[in-house]
């Protein structure tokens, strides 16, 4: 019997075990909560970084391809750019208004709803004319053969030749054979109050002719654009329209903010500022 009595726990042992267990479980719970808080913060941080990076990459893609004199509006919260969809050489004229061109992939390779207009290259810049695709689109029949007759190499690319219309009414001088034209899109980027998250700022992307698209939600209210004018070293929030053509670099301040859902966490912010030089390709 003595042996059986010795095989059980004493009250003291049980109490000690309870105290120790409580301490260990409390310790583990605290560690878990800290870890969970840390994980949540990290997740928010990663999301904020994703937002900032997405905004910067989207803007960078368009800014680095902006054509000469392709900035239309340069404000702290709004930026309107003209970027090429395709450039082409007029290889044949069919009257003053019609001209044949070749673009990679042909007309099928163009996302024509985004066409905002046509630009004509001169020695130093582009002359822009706003016109939607229905105005510019001519009948493609015979374009390739007409260009081939004029000396163009159409082998293996007949489907890439198509006809542009309205050429005589768009520019100060009617384009001729050998002139370079550019189909361009015009896109407005703006930092505005988010429609998806009423307490957040969003980056909107608005191609000409389209409704605004909320591209990146979760930007901070401090997100904005700044501009450097050629010959200066500082960036400013806005540029008067007379000096827009002189902008040679755009600073994208892609500040992102992720709001903490609960648990007493603070909002997480992430600032990503990128200076993008215009016309990196000549």
């Amino acid at each position: 019997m003595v042996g059986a009595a010795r095989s059980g726990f004493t009250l003291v042992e049980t109490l000690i075990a309870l105290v120790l267990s409580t301490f260990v479980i409390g310790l583990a719970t605290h560690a878990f909560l800290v870890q969970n808080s840390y994980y949540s913060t990290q997740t928010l941080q990663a999301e904020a970084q994703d937002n900032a990076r997405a905004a910067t990459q989207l803007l960078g893609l368009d800014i680095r391809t902006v054509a000469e004199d392709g900035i239309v509006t340069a404000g702290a919260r709004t930026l309107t750019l003209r970027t090429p969809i395709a450039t082409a050489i007029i290889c044949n004229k069919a009257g003053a208004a019609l001209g044949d061109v070749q673009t990679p992939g042909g007309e099928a390779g163009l996302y024509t709803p985004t066409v905002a207009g046509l630009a004509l290259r001169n020695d130093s810049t582009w002359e822009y004319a706003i016109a939607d695709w229905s105005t510019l689109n001519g009948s493609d029949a015979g374009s390739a053969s007409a260009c081939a007759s004029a000396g163009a190499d159409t082998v293996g690319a007949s489907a890439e030749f198509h006809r542009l219309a309205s050429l005589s009414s768009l520019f100060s001088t009617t384009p001729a054979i050998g002139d370079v034209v550019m189909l361009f899109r015009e896109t407005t980027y703006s930092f505005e109050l988010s429609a998806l998250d009423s307490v957040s700022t969003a980056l909107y992307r608005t191609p000409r002719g389209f409704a605004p698209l909320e591209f990146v939600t979760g930007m901070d209210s401090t997100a904005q654009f700044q501009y450097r004018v050629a010959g200066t070293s500082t960036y400013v929030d806005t540029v008067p329209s007379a000096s827009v053509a002189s902008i040679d670099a755009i600073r994208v301040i892609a500040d992102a903010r992720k709001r903490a859902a609960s648990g007493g966490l603070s909002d997480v912010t992430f600032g990503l500022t990128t200076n993008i030089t215009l016309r990196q390709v000549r």
Partner: protein
Amino acid sequence: MTGYGTRAIARGRGGFVLALVVFMLFAISVAGAAGYLIVASEFAMARYSSEGGEALAVARAGIERFVGEHSGTVPDTVSYAMGDGVVVVTTRKLAETDSVTHLYTLKAEATVADPRTPATPARRVVTAQAILRRRPMPHLAALITSANSVTVHSFGDADGVDHNTAFDCVGGGASSITGGVARGAISGVLNGSPSSEIWPGGWDAIRDSIVARWDVLSDPDFPVDYENTLPPLGTIPADSFPLVRFTGHNLTSTSGDHNKGVLIWVGELRPWFLFNWEGIVLAENIGEPFLGFLGGGSVDGMLIGGLNADNSPSSVEIRTDVRYHSCDVYRANESLSYFELLPNTMFEAR
């Protein structure tokens, strides 16, 4: 403390600690795996972004290199290994403003692959428009030199009358051109319409007039068909007039120098009696005749010297037959065709 009850308590605590350790190890493993995934994902994104940027740079550089290095007939496709990538430049002629001005669209597709993920290279495409300046050199005179004084010896001549009497080639049958041109004075055996002219403007005026791009052609990095060697004449196709460059000072042409094409002589050209060239000879300087050389040799086409500065020596005696041959000049001139990028036309294609 070695009784049965103590061992039982010890076993019970051991089991509890083991469970705690396993739990902690699991939690650490999960956290580690999550951390690794995040870091790996970030690394992959950063790497791909970096490679994309490099691919764009390679594509742009590919177009610049093609335009800078091209001379003569336009290939459909050229491939370059540049940096960590490869760029393929394709050309397509789209318009002919006139017979010597053609417009091309150029497309450069660059890929940069990471050795760890070769199946998914970063890819960028850049397009540009360019003008091909065909046969850029005007037929101005059989002999043009920026030497101050030129004497055409009776053993040679400078003749601007077209020696392509057969009229059997494109560009043949041209009108007579000037026989010889010098900066200050020219005399001797001269023929043409007129037989001679004085161009006081010096070497830079000559360089601008002949559109020879001497600085490009004489650059050792500019690729030519033959460098410091002459191909056997019989191995050159009949319709080919290659670029041949000799570089050095006081080079002396020697035996077996009957050839054709565009001879780019970086240094002092001192023709010998076996020197026979069909096409265009561009020389940094035309020197004195080879020691003991009485006469002989010929240039059927055009001979132009003194392109980097006024010809040195300033007084030159020509003992070679320099005879204008419109067909040879026409064909050699084709090898000097070059591209010019149209400004504001190079864009990334997306």
